[in-house]
């Protein structure tokens, strides 16, 4: 059997397959044993509860999904009380995705979470395109990204994953700033800005007008971003954006991802992550290649 173990920052994953923040939750435990995943990434948590954006929040386009959830979440306190203990039951790496509107807020969240046991890493969501002044201001400016991450680096020993937005001119610049700031891992991509209009009512299909585009339609964009970032950083990349099955996952790995995350596809086939883990073993055996040699092996 192929060895799928991989070091992601300070974590050891039993396999390189995880889930994209906001597309997965404890509810999936009714369908399969979450311990089978290399890691679980929670939905993004903020210091205070957030009600989220006005509905409608979803629209399906011809080749993907638009969402403007607006980081709806119960807030740090409720998360620690209700959700975290449940996550901690699983024998896998728990990564808490966090966001904030200021460096102080980010710091507060991490300081609080650092007191909790069995959290293996933080994913810093600097890229969510749905919430004004939350995330977005950070993710598009390399100076701000550097400041934020180097600040957080001083606070925590745990693995810091920085999640990048594709909605920038040079994702390389942002990636390098995050690495220089002390990030252990990068994850990409967050959703692409998108919009759809109902031609009968002439209204935007999501109330928030500009939404986040995910699913198979963004896959070529995501692979391209992974490829570019992998060329300029030394830290590992968690690749995502439209991954549905093993062949999509392999594209990301060959492009330079050390691990991959399934997002929108969790809504379509909740077992997609498991299928990919299986498919990966099969591919490695067939192609007689070690997992580590596959990463970034594009010719």
């Amino acid at each position, binding site marked *: 059997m192929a060895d799928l173990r991989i070091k992601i920052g300070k974590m050891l994953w039993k396999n390189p397959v995880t889930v994209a923040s906001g597309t997965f939750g404890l509810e999936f435990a009714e369908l399969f044993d979450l311990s089978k995943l290399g890691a679980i990434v929670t939905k993004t948590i903020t210091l205070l509860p957030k009600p989220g954006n006005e*509905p409608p929040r979803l629209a399906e386009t011809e080749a993907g*999904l638009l*969402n403007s*959830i607006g980081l*709806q979440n119960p807030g740090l306190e409720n998360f620690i009380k209700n959700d975290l203990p449940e996550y901690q039951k699983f024998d896998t790496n728990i990564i808490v995705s966090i966001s904030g509107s200021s460096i102080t807020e980010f710091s507060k969240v991490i300081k609080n979470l650092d007191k909790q046991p069995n959290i293996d890493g933080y994913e810093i969501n600097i890229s969510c395109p749905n919430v004004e002044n939350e995330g977005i201001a950070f993710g598009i400016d390399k100076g701000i990204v550097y400041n934020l991450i180097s600040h957080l680096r001083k606070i925590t020993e745990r693995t810091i994953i920085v999640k990048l937005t594709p909605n920038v001119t040079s994702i390389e610049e942002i990636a390098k700033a995050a690495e220089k700031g002390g990030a252990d891992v990068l994850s990409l991509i967050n959703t692409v800005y998108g919009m759809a209009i109902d031609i009968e009512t002439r209204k935007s299909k999501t109330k928030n007008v500009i939404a986040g585009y995910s699913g198979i339609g963004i896959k070529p964009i995501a692979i391209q971003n992974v490829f570019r970032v992998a060329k300029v950083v030394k830290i590992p990349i968690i690749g995502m954006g439209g991954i549905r099955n093993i062949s999509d996952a392999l594209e990301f790995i060959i492009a330079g991802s050390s691990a991959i995350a399934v997002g929108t596809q969790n809504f379509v086939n909740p077992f997609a992550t498991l299928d990919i883990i299986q498919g990966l073993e099969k591919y490695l055996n067939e192609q007689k290649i070690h997992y580590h040699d596959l990463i970034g092996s594009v010719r």
Partner: protein
Amino acid sequence: MPYKLLPIFKKELINNKYFIITFSDYEMADQCHPGQFFRLKNPQQNFPILPRPFSVNNIQDKQTSFLIKIVGESTKNLFETKIGENISLHGPLGNGFKIARNKKVLIVSGGIGYAPFPFLLKKLEKAKDEIVFFHGGKSSDDIFSANVINFTEDGSVGKKGLVTDGVEQFLQKNQVDIVYACGPQIMLKKLTEICKQFNVDLQVSLETIMACGIGVCCGCAIRIVENGKMVYKKVCKDGPVFDGYTVVWDE
């Protein structure tokens, strides 16, 4: 809420707008409660991406059926999928209707909003309720049963007019304890106003676009007034059935 691949057991065309699709699975049939829904998708179809939610229409001889209106790509594809081919089914999902016991019940449906009621009817009959069923549609195509009081906008079948007008008249003359309703937003909104006048309990089943169907994505939010405050609730998990008086209707 299991996720299963099941072959289509039966398919019945009602007319060129509606069909019923049936699956035979004991476990599935036993778990369902009226008002709950399943997410259906033909796994062979790549686009549209998302499974679509459909209410349990009826359960008979351990067979679970869905009444489906052909409105777009997914419903068309479900219609075209042949008997014996596999469909993925995720469910039962959602809360479902609260069953009244020994009450005077009025069911009100509009168009495809008829879908969840045959199953509810069965349970209400067992609960010894006294039931009146009003259904409205645009024309005879949108009428599903001769055993209910039908309204059509064009008068082609049943009474001519809107079902809500019928309800208003009925409530003026008859005492009713609880109203169960499903249909277009505009109908439900009107119905809420009417029921309020008569101070009747009101359970409405709502629709929104859904991604996960199980409370994960927060995509299906609607506005509900809770303790005097507007909050977002999830149609998939907190609903699809809500107390009609708490719903903040769209403009």
